[in-house]
């Protein structure tokens, strides 16, 4: 595993890495370069991203639609009642 990703994973999952002092001690033993150490210490996500050459790009991550199908939403006031009745079948079923 990439050392810097491993560091992020450890920082997020090790309860002993809470104080700044503990994190700094951990970072000195982690096998990451100085630039990455500085970015992590400064909590600078953009700077850290720049140190990883092959970091995958994320375009979007949205996964929900306002309605289940792509039919246009009726604007006609006269169709309000009909819309009210059909709305439940159009709504996206999302579980909590």
């Amino acid at each position: 595993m990439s050392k810097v990703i491993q560091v992020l994973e450890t920082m997020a999952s090790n309860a002993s890495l809470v104080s700044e002092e503990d994190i700094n001690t951990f970072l000195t033993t982690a096998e990451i370069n100085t630039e990455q150490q500085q970015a992590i210490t400064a909590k600078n996500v953009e700077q850290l991203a720049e140190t990883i050459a092959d970091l995958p790009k994320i375009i979007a991550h949205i996964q929900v639609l306002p309605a289940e199908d792509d039919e246009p939403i009726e604007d006609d006031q006269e169709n309000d009642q009909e819309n009210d009745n059909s709305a439940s079948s159009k709504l996206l079923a999302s579980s909590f």
Partner: protein
Amino acid sequence: MTGSLVCVGTGITLGAHISPIATSHIEQADIVFSLMANGFAQKWLEEMNADVRTLQGFYQAGKNRNITYNEMVETILTQVREGKKVVAAFYGHPGVFACVSHRAINKAKTEDLAASMEPGISAEDCLYADLGIDPGKTGCSHYETSQFMFYKRNIDTSAHLILWQVVLAGDKSLAKFSTGSAYREVLIDLLLEHYPSDHQVILYQAKGIAIDSMRAEYISLTELIDAELFMHTTLVIPPCTKMQPNAKVLARLAEIDKQEKRANNVPVLSLVL
């Protein structure tokens, strides 16, 4: 060989939120399809399995997301039909505000293919922890923002109102990654029918990686128009009114209490041998 699909959630914060069973599914899968919220999480996932395929390529500005989601589902199911052990890994919870996993599982089941879901820690879970909101205290309603705008809702101002994907407020095209201030103005006007203009609302973002900061920015409702919003920004609207007692229901319950009390006051007869 029979194919299978498991949709798993990787949680919101890289490394902190994934469950042991989700990790195991990812590690043992023939193919892992992924939709992660940041490059770090994608890279982390790619190091858990030798064949991780991102679904990012299906997203395109100007393309109807309904088509995008159907293409993602077909791509996932094609491999299941070929007999592969497939995992679809989504950030957060795979079934919360996430239609791809629901569609894929439903379709797989109609084709008699094995399909299931493993939960993950969602942004909603993080929100309750970070903002100190207990949904059981006054109640809580959640809506996708555009859905909230398109359909008539009974807004309960004595409960929390949480609007997801506020960056896409009012997008009927389903083809944008953000909408502008004119769209937001419609949302604000809708909310102003129920909330005062100076009502404090919260822009919330959970942290994606350990060094991220959680965002909990308090602004007035009208300031929303110029606020900096991202895909993962959630609008939290705290209650502005107190819960009103339902006198009719309370009276009925009091009557039942009275009857029960009367019944309990009847002397207990015991059989003495």
